[in-house]
């Protein structure tokens, strides 16, 4: 059931209890976790934090902890599947689920006792009405009635029997019709997968209601929202309206302390609204590198072609920026250039067809040196979360490191994350360039398909879901810009990359077509399931996003064929 009053029905309930926090491995979940941890520290609520990367992890974690804990808080996992059936909990376990995955499973919505959903109901949920999908079975009563009636005197029995049989046939027909309609409604409801309001924002609102919201929590909520935008989980409209909500909170915080006479210490955190250029990490890199490695500019200029490189040089000349300045670290650029940089870039980019070079976002500023944009933090934390630096990929270690990098006092963690993010972006750009130049993207009819071969450089980086999704998005955009085929521009993309060499598996990701007004609804989850069933391929649907699966390398071709037939 949905919880509307978070404070009364969630926070006060867990106030004196021990809670198990099961957190999924994405940045929004990490931010929500940080906010909740800060609230728990304020009120000294004991909790255990367990990172989970998939359904199997979730089940194992639940089995380990179900003896000691009665209250479980699930962040960004658990809403889109029948949780009670999967976990088989005892009757007194209560689950609080704050998840952005939609559609929410109908069993979770209509369960009144054990499942509490911390989800805002004004999201476009579209949950089917109760009576359309559940109904009490009346057949047992009817047939009992009929047998009673059958003991009537024999003279009247024949007539009653005919009436009774007709009524029974009528009821059965109605039941079949109802069931057919139910299947249709459920199919429509569960067909497309999409995302709702950020979990971090929901917990920030809880903090606000408790008047325990601080600037740190506000910043984490902003990072959670930006993560949804960077990894393409929400539509542009929703992003803009959520930014407006956050902007109200930011102005509230800024008005509280700033005064002409009593200005704040320089060490205090200042969050400001920025209408900044869409160049990833540009303040921590050189402007030139940032333009080359941000997907928006790289795709619009087509930087994998020679013509594109020339266009870039023209663009820089048009802005009046000398190459020497542009290629050095951003912080060492001339102050006169840095002052009007955004306006200059916007003006010139309009001439080159990049209309949305600027995007609304927030930046933070504390101490004398430290300025970060929300998207910088998202990229850094994502790079740390999925880092393949160490040989044994310890997911818990990476999780804790990424969690630490979000705090203000772990700046070297954050710097390390930014370096990893730079390497990741460069790897993505190079892979995109090679895929386009060698025509690795094939049109299979209803969708586009690309497979990264074993020996591709940095392929280990792309065995992780977030990195692969980012690569997918950039590749699709680049493809749309480079192809002449009008039909291909509207196709979705499926990408496969080797995941585990010893086990011989690949990770497969599907994303919806790239368009300005896309509603980001992804139908590949159901499609993958059906295709796997029909070909009995050995697949693992372990990830919380149903559009990301693991597949055995040998079954790849028959799986693809099944998909093609399914989607044509």
């Amino acid at each position: 059931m949905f919880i509307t009053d978070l404070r009364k029905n969630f926070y006060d309930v867990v106030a004196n209890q021990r809670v198990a926090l099961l957190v999924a491995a994405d940045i929004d979940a990490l931010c929500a976790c940080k906010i909740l941890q800060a609230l728990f520290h304020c009120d000294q609520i004991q909790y255990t934090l367990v990172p989970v990367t998939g359904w199997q992890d979730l089940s194992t974690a639940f089995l380990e902890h179900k003896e000691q804990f009665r209250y479980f808080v699930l962040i960004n996992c658990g809403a889109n599947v029948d949780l009670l059936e999967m976990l088989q909990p005892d009757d007194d376990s209560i689950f609080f689920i704050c998840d952005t995955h939609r559609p929410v499973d109908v069993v979770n919505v209509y369960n009144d006792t054990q499942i509490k959903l911390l989800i805002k109901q004004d999201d476009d949920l579209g949950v089917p009405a109760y009576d359309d999908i559940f109904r009490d079975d009346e057949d047992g009563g009817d047939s009992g009635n009929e047998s009673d009636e059958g003991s009537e005197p024999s003279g009247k029995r024949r007539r009653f029997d005919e009436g009774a049989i007709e009524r029974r046939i009528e009821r059965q027909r109605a039941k079949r019709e109802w069931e057919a309609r139910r299947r249709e409604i459920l199919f429509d409801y569960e067909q497309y997968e999409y995302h709702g309001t950020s979990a971090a924002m929901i917990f920030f609102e809880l903090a606000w209601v408790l008047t325990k919201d601080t600037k740190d929590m506000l910043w984490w909520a902003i990072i959670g929202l930006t993560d949804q935008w960077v990894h393409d989980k929400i539509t542009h409209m929703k992003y803009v309206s959520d930014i407006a909500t956050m902007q109200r909170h930011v102005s509230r915080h800024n008005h509280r302390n700033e005064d002409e006479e009593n200005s704040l210490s320089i060490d205090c955190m200042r969050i400001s609204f920025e209408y900044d250029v869409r160049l990833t990490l540009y303040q921590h890199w050189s402007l030139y590198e940032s333009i080359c490695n941000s997907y928006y500019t790289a795709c619009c200029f087509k930087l994998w072609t020679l013509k594109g490189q020339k266009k870039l040089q023209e663009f820089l000349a048009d802005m009046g920026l000398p190459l020497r300045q542009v290629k050095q670290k951003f912080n060492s650029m001339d102050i006169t250039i840095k002052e009007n940089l955004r306006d200059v870039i916007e003006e010139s980019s309009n001439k080159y067809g990049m209309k949305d070079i600027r995007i609304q976002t927030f930046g933070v500023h504390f101490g004398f040196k430290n300025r970060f944009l929300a998207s910088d933090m998202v990229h850094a934390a994502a790079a740390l979360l999925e880092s393949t630096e160490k040989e044994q990929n310890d997911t818990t270690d990476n999780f804790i490191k990424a969690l630490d990098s979000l705090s203000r006092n772990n700046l070297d963690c954050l710097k390390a994350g930014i370096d990893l993010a730079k390497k990741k972006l460069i790897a993505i750009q190079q892979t995109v360039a090679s895929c386009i130049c060698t025509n690795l993207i094939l049109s299979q009819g209803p969708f586009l398909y690309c497979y990264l071969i074993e020996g591709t450089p940095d392929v280990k980086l792309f065995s992780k879901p977030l990195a692969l999704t980012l690569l997918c998005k950039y590749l699709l955009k680049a493809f749309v810009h480079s192809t002449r085929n009008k039909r291909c521009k509207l196709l979705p993309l499926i990408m496969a990359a080797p995941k585990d060499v010893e086990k011989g598996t690949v990770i497969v990701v599907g994303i919806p077509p790239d368009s300005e007004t896309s509603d980001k609804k992804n139908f590949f989850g159901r499609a993958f399931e059906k295709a796997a069933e029909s070909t009995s391929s050995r697949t693992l649907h372990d990830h919380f996003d149903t559009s990301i699966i693991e597949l055995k390398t040998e079954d790849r071709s028959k799986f693809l064929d099944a998909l093609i037939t399914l989607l044509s």
Partner: protein
Amino acid sequence: MDPSEVEFLAEKEFVKIIPNFSLDKIYLIGGDLGPFNPGLPVDVPVWLALNLKQRQKCRILPLEWMDVEKLEEIRELERKEDAFTPAPSSYYMELTKLLLNHASDNIPKADEIRTLVKDIWDTRIAKLRLSADSFIRQQEAHAQVTQIMGINHKAVRFISYQQEIQA
């Protein structure tokens, strides 16, 4: 004494806070505290004030000597006199560090206060060095030191040890 011990003792000083919760009077070994009512100022020791601040249950009001004009006066006085002048409080350095690290958003002009306190500290340390130096050169047996605070004791021992080695 260890600097951490000195800081521990500094936390016993009282500071005014404005809580946002209510609680009856609490009876602790060190004394009675409270009652706490939202919006009404109450005196508590610094250790409790910092704990409550970190749990976002109160707002700390700046100490009366933590004011830019007062500190400027004290600094000028310190610079003029050769001997030590009364410091703002017995534990001014420790209190400044604690309060400005944890509650700098409640204290106006925190950066200037930090600079001024550091100036006062530097002046006093310089005087200490000078006097310890002259003390050892003149081979005096006793010296009268007034107005030196706990954290300076350790500085005295260190400086005199240094001087001993040089002499």
